[in-house]
Each structure stands twice: as structure tokens, then as C-alpha cells.
């Protein structure tokens, strides 16, 4: 008797919610970035779980692409953080609002 699909979906939902909570409550740009990675991973769990329960490889291939996009996003996102820190001497996202007003 293997673990039912609902358990994986519930775990994925919990991790996604924790990621959103981190994005909403933390003010450090790098920690916000790590929370986004956590949310990407929780969606990957859903993909792999459905792939395994449907017996279809497509879900796993999609996870592969999500990983590639996450790697690209990490490189560009961290480059933006470095550029911001060089210009404003802070990574606090409340103080980085030049695009906002």
C-alpha cells in the first residue's frame, strides 16, 4: 500500500503557503528570492506526484524544464541583487521603490 496522492498534494500546498508567507513577511531581497525557489520546488512535487500516479513521463520532463528556468532565474536575480546593492547599499525591499512611484 503506497502513499496516496492527496498526501503529496497536501505537502506541496503546505510548502507553497510557507513560501508565500516568507515572500510577504520578509524584507531581505535574498530571503524573498529563496522563498520563491521554495515555491517552485513545491510545484515540482505536484508535477512529479501526478506524473508518478498517471504513469506518464511528461510531468517529470516539465520538472526538468522548471529546474532549467530556476537556474536561469537564480543567475539573473542574484545579478540584479548585486547591482541594486552596489547602487543603493541595501537589499531591503521596502527601500527599493524607484520603480514604484
Amino acid at each position, binding site marked *: 500500500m503506497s502513499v496516496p496522492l492527496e498526501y503529496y498534494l497536501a505537502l506541496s500546498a503546505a*510548502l507553497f503557503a510557507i513560501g*508565500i508567507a516568507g515572500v510577504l513577511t520578509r524584507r531581505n531581497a535574498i530571503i524573498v528570492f*529563496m522563498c520563491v*525557489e521554495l515555491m517552485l*520546488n513545491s510545484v515540482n512535487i505536484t508535477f512529479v506526484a501526478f506524473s508518478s500516479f498517471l504513469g506518464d513521463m511528461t510531468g517529470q520532463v516539465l520538472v526538468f524544464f522548471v529546474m532549467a528556468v530556476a*537556474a*536561469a532565474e537564480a543567475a*539573473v536575480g542574484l545579478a540584479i541583487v548585486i547591482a541594486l546593492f552596489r547602487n543603493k547599499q541595501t537589499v531591503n525591499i521596502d527601500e527599493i521603490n524607484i520603480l514604484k512611484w
Partner: protein
Amino acid sequence: MEHILFFVVAASAIATALLMIVQRNPVMSAIYLIGNFFSIAMLYLLLRAQLLAVLQIVVYTGAIMVLVVFVIMLLNLGDERRLTEQFAAKKIIGVALVAGFLLEMLYIVAIRGDVIPGGGASSLPESFGTSESMGAALFGRFLLPFEVTSLLLLAAIIGAVVLAKKRT
């Protein structure tokens, strides 16, 4: 047996995720996130996705998190307390919204989560999730997306270099 393993791994995933978002020190956050990624790799093994479990460790903890830790130490960030004044009301509203959202998702999983009656990982063929079947899918049906991904990575490399280099 599989249930016990699942609950241990799930508990460690949630615990490390929670510890990650409450840590003040960004380096400790990064280390807990690495623990979380290892838990997720264990889940992939439970779901018969061997190649993805290896890729999870190599790409996420080996490449992305090393980059994150490197940037944290390069910028020499201290505790968050010094660089922010806290808005408690915002945080409470945010956590309340997240709790509502989580309950909604769990409700949907509870009422519709059994749409796929399949037997799970035990009824899959032996070749499922191996690098062989993954490669056959990537270079067969998904050849065009695979090639486009390489363009995306090239664009990301150039973008990262342009963004992070010093203005002359």
C-alpha cells in the same frame, strides 16, 4: 514502511521550510533551504523519479544554493533587524491571508484529491523515471522545448554578466 518514510521526510521538509522563513540570519536561512531541498529529493525517490532526485541535489543544492550563499557572503549582510523597521500589522495580514489560502488549497485537495485512483509508485514499469526514459522523452517529443531551453540559458548568462559588471 513507505508511509513512515513519507511522514518523516514530509515533516523534515515542512520543519526546514518554517525554520528558513523565521531565521534572521540569511546564511542560516540558506542552510535550512538546502536541508529542505534534500527532503524534496527524498520525496522524488519515493515517487520513482531517480534522475530528478539526483538533478535536484546537483542543480539546486550544488549550483543555485552555492550561488546564493556566495552572494550573501559577498554582500556581507548582517541581521535583518538593523536594516528595517518592522510593520507588525502588515505581517499579521500577510500570515492571515496565507493561512486562508492554505486552508482553501487543503479543502480542494480533500474533496477532489482522489480523482486519480492509480496505485502509485508500486504499479509503475521498471524503466519509469530512469535517465534512459527521461532522455527518450527529452530528445523525442520535447526536442524543441529542450533546444529553446539552451537559448534561455544563454540569454541568462549574458544577462547576468551585463547586470553584475561594474559600470564604466
